[in-house]
């Protein structure tokens, strides 16, 4: 709105510099005082000095399953990096409850843990098998319950084959391939002896790598290596005899270990996922009770190389 007016109608405006300085000075002093008070309360303790990172569910490169408990390696790696760059964090406690999953996803987590300079301690809850155990094996000390499921150090890439079914229903699979083995492992092609041998060799070489990693991390003997190479899972009791875990215990024991090892009073900084709509939904059907079963089913029904 434009209003033409006379000079005399405009009130004489004089910017009172003294009042302005007074306001600025007062605000600056209050800010300075408040920051000094807040600073005195902010110390290492208020942030937490030990990161608690859960590795729970099927380990995948990306978490994309609505109805099962999955652990995305991208998210976990980010959490490990956050803990690593946080100067307040002195140790990382891994809460492992996983049957493994994607070999690549497990390795991503393992590499992130190997790159950190923090003390790592792991405790296995219901299950720390395969890729889940690989992650735990990077820890300086592993705790597990006597009844935990530990081990299962093997690799598989099983898949269903439908070639017989297609023949039964007179469905033809038009195989158009450039490169003899391009569609090796396709569920629509019968696996011949050569293809099976090739796939088995690849799985064997991955298994050797996986075993070497575990043996290195846990400093195991060649006899134990041979024993665990079967891919069998063990109870916590058996795992301790084999040297796959160090002690029986849970989160409290892991905290005690960190306190003694680093001579600090542990204050946990949790890196647990925030509860979203999916978790709330699943909470109603008590999904956790069936998580082990659903993890196994998901693992066996998905394609790719699994640890």
């Amino acid at each position: 709105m434009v209003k033409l007016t006379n000079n005399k109608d405009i009130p004489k405006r004089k910017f009172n510099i003294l009042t302005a300085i007074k306001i600025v000075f007062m605000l600056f002093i209050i800010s300075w005082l408040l920051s000094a008070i807040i600073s005195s309360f902010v110390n290492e303790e208020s942030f937490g000095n030990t990161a608690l990172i859960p590795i729970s569910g099927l380990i995948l490169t990306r978490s994309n399953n609505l109805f099962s408990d999955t652990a995305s390696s991208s998210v976990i790696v980010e959490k490990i990096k956050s803990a690593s760059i946080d100067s307040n964090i002195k140790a990382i406690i891994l809460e492992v409850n996983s049957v493994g999953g994607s070999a690549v996803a497990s390795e991503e987590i393992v590499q992130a843990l190997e790159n950190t300079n923090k003390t790592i301690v792991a405790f296995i809850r219901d299950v720390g098998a395969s890729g889940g155990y690989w992650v735990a094996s990077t820890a300086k000390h592993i705790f597990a319950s006597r009844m935990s499921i530990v081990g299962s150090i093997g690799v598989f890439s099983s898949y269903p084959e439908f070639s017989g079914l297609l023949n039964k229903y007179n469905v033809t699979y038009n195989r158009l391939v450039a490169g003899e083995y391009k569609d090796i492992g396709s569920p629509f092609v019968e696996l011949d002896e050569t293809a099976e041998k090739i796939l088995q060799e690849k799985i064997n070489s991955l298994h050797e790598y996986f075993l070497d990693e575990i043996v290195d991390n846990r400093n195991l003997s060649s006899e134990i290596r041979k024993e665990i190479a079967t891919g069998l899972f063990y109870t916590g009791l058996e795992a301790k005899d084999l040297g796959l875990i160090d002690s029986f215990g849970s989160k409290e024991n892991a905290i005690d270990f960190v306190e003694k090892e680093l001579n600090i009073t542990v204050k946990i900084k949790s890196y647990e996922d925030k509860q979203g709509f999916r978790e709330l939904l699943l909470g109603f059907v008590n999904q956790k009770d069936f998580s082990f079963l659903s993890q196994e089913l998901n693992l066996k029904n998905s394609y790719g190389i699994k640890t």
Partner: protein
Amino acid sequence: MMNLNLPKERVVKKDASIIKRFLALLIDILAINLFIISPFQKVFLKFFNQDASIMQNISLLESVSTTTLYITMFSVIVLALLYFALFEYKLSQTIGMMIMKIYVEGEISFWKAVIRNMFIIPFFPFYILWVVDPIHLFFRGKRFSEEMTKTRTVEIIKW
């Protein structure tokens, strides 16, 4: 001395231009940064890691969730609100407005000045004003908060 018969000085009072208001706000943000936020730098440095990326700092911040962080944020917001409210209540002008030669017109009490500047509170429902105020300003020539407090921001042009 020769007397020139020049036309009298003409004065126009009009709603302050959007550009002038925007520049005044920018100057005020700079002033707030200098006088209010900078003393808190020591505290903020404890929350953020300078070696980390922005995304890593955000995830660090998410995992902190301490009351200290909220107290710090609350203090800064209240002080920034006080900056605008006190200047407008006492002088009808903030530092930015003074530089851009615009001022608040209308009967202004302290609480009116607070209501006028509630847009700086970054919580619901106040951040709705980030959308409502500019739209109102664009179409009606004054912010929605100004409409509520029956005040307006004006400039005086003399020639």
